[in-house]
């Protein structure tokens, strides 16, 4: 795990040396992955020629999206293409997104399309009174509409995380319903515990926004993430 800490520190330090406060999605997921958090399989493609190999490595269907620390709202800017089912679709998406970047520094992220109808969110904030605190709640568009989230002070233990699940109004989303399997609470708890640990071990991290976490069957997978440095 100390190795994960070092790997995360390296990515964070890289952004800092670049003079950036915001990590790209790919960097942010690298930090999360270093802490054992399950993230989408993905490849960063900087040139058109890399797309075919990336697509082959990950397998269809794909999500292709802009990856730039300067662009926080990719969907709103039309820089995300989902459910791509062939190499030609992937190449066309690459071209359109590169054009859409309009000169902003960045590349294209070719990632697995995680299938699941339930989206969750997690995060880390620094509170003036209690230091790093971990957030959990409903994800996707429901985060902003329902604001159904709750917090725990880091470090969290498993009991804290399990209790946090019960605190949101939409906690039933974690139960099996309509043929969906119940969420893997242990895995989800581990994710929250890791976020808290990340916040405590890296004072340079101001805020982490992990949204959505898609439940692929019972297994949580981080599909998008944002890390802001102090």
């Amino acid at each position: 795990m100390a190795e994960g800490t070092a790997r995360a520190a390296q990515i964070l330090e890289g952004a800092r040396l670049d003079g950036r406060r915001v990590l790209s999605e790919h960097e942010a997921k690298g930090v999360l992955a270093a802490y054992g958090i399950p993230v989408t399989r993905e490849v960063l493609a900087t040139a058109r020629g890399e797309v075919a190999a990336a697509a082959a490595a990950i397998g269809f269907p794909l999500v292709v999206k802009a990856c730039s620390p300067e662009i926080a709202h990719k969907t709103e800017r039309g820089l995300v293409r989902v459910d791509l089912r062939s190499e030609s679709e992937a190449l066309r998406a690459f071209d359109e997104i590169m054009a859409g970047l309009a000169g902003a520094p960045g590349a294209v992220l070719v990632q697995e399309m995680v299938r699941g109808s339930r989206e969750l969110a997690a995060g880390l904030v620094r509170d003036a009174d209690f230091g790093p605190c971990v957030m959990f709640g409903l994800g996707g568009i429901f985060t902003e509409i329902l604001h159904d989230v709750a917090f725990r002070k880091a470090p969290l233990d498993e009991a804290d995380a399990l209790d946090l699940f019960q605190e949101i109004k939409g906690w039933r989303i974690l139960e099996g319903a309509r043929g969906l399997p119940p969420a893997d609470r242990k895995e989800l708890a581990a994710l929250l515990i890791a976020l808290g640990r990340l916040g405590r071990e890296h004072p340079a991290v101001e805020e982490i926004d992990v949204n959505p976490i898609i439940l692929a069957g019972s297994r949580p997978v981080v599909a998008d993430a944002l890390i802001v440095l102090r």
Partner: protein
Amino acid sequence: MTDFERIFHPQRLAIVGVSADSRSIGFGNGILVACRAMGFAGEILPVNPRGGTFAGQEIYRSVEDIPGDIDFAAIAVPAESVPDALEACRRKGAAGAEVVTAGFAELGTPEGIALEQRVKEVAARGIRVVGPNCFGIYCPRSGLTLLPGPDLSRESGPVAFLSQSGGMSIDLAHTGKWMGIRFSKVVSFGNGADLRETELLRYLGDDPETGVVAMYVEGVEDGDAFFEAARSVGRRKPVVVYKGGLSEAGRRAVVGHTASMGGSRAIWSGVLRQVNAVQVGDLAEIAQACLAFALLPARTYRGISMIGGGGALGVAAGDAAEANGISIPLLAPELQDRISAVLPKPGSSAGNPIDVANPFFPPEGLRRVLQLAAEDPRVELQVVTSLLYHYKSQAAAIGRSLAEVAPFRELAEAAGDAAEATGKPVIVILPSLKRGGDDLDVLDVLARARQAFLDRGVPVFDDIADALRAVGHLNAYYGRRDG
């Protein structure tokens, strides 16, 4: 090592800043008068540089002039004189002092902040300071009382209250007096230059006189330390927290109030739940939670019986119960038959809620119904609503007073006896529905009735929703601690 015993139960109390002018309404005179009215057991030693006498008692010209040591001091001199007065008390061997004077860091001025820093420096040399900008300490056992509190109860009990706000401390102390909350210690710590929320919480966690700790906090000095203390104390006794300043407007008020910043609502809620503290949203809810924690045996109450006259009472009760995760189980047919035999006909219902049909259901009937309903193992607590005001028209019809006619003493005996006999506690709801100037007799009877129930250890609430919310707090706390 802080000598809290000499702080809360001082034998020799100096009051610095007492004027010889008997018409003075200064804080020093206020404290002296209040402590005397409370029958403070120790020696009171007033101090003022101009000397003289106050109410027959010699005023020392300086703290140094007091013969012998002192245990504790109340300091009410102007802000700029506070550090020197505090230092003099320290040299006199005082374990602590309360500084009621305002005009320190809460002003936000460089002068105010510098003055508070000097208070901290004296404290660091070995005297514990409560305040400044506070109402001080109320301890019923010693008779030490809050600045405006000459008429608080001298009866001790299990509830401690820590408050950044002086107003909140005196308000709860007075509220507790009529609601039946008995205090071990109340501390208004104001700016908290030295002693403040976390250290006092730890102390009260270890204090054998204290069974419940309630707190009003606007901001905490050290969130990590507070978290650890609250979690640790919460494992032993309930910690009830009202965090003020969570709204935007409230936050602005807090900054000017005690020189601390209010935190985010969602984070405070999460953190309080994490340490199994009981979060409440106002003074009334603090009082209601403290009453329930103090008077009900320490456990959860998942199922209740609900007894009262009138169908809508049962509906309201059902709604309040469900909102708090409490069930009102339908009693078994055989038990319903036995209860029904006691109830007036028609219009009654024995299902649970148990509708006793009218507000004149006699105390002996209530006693029997409570005994029977307790036979259902799912009933863990019984809630009785009594609308005593209805007796007013009955009393008028026979030319008697309400106090003579309303059988509150007998009802209190019935409820108290049933609780003892069955081992299942009883809560009484006495709604105060007639409060106009022409119904002072109703208010009078309600106050007496409340006292009669409290004398039998039966907690009384004004409203069913308040009562069940308080029971919900017990369920959450004990359920998570012991479950």
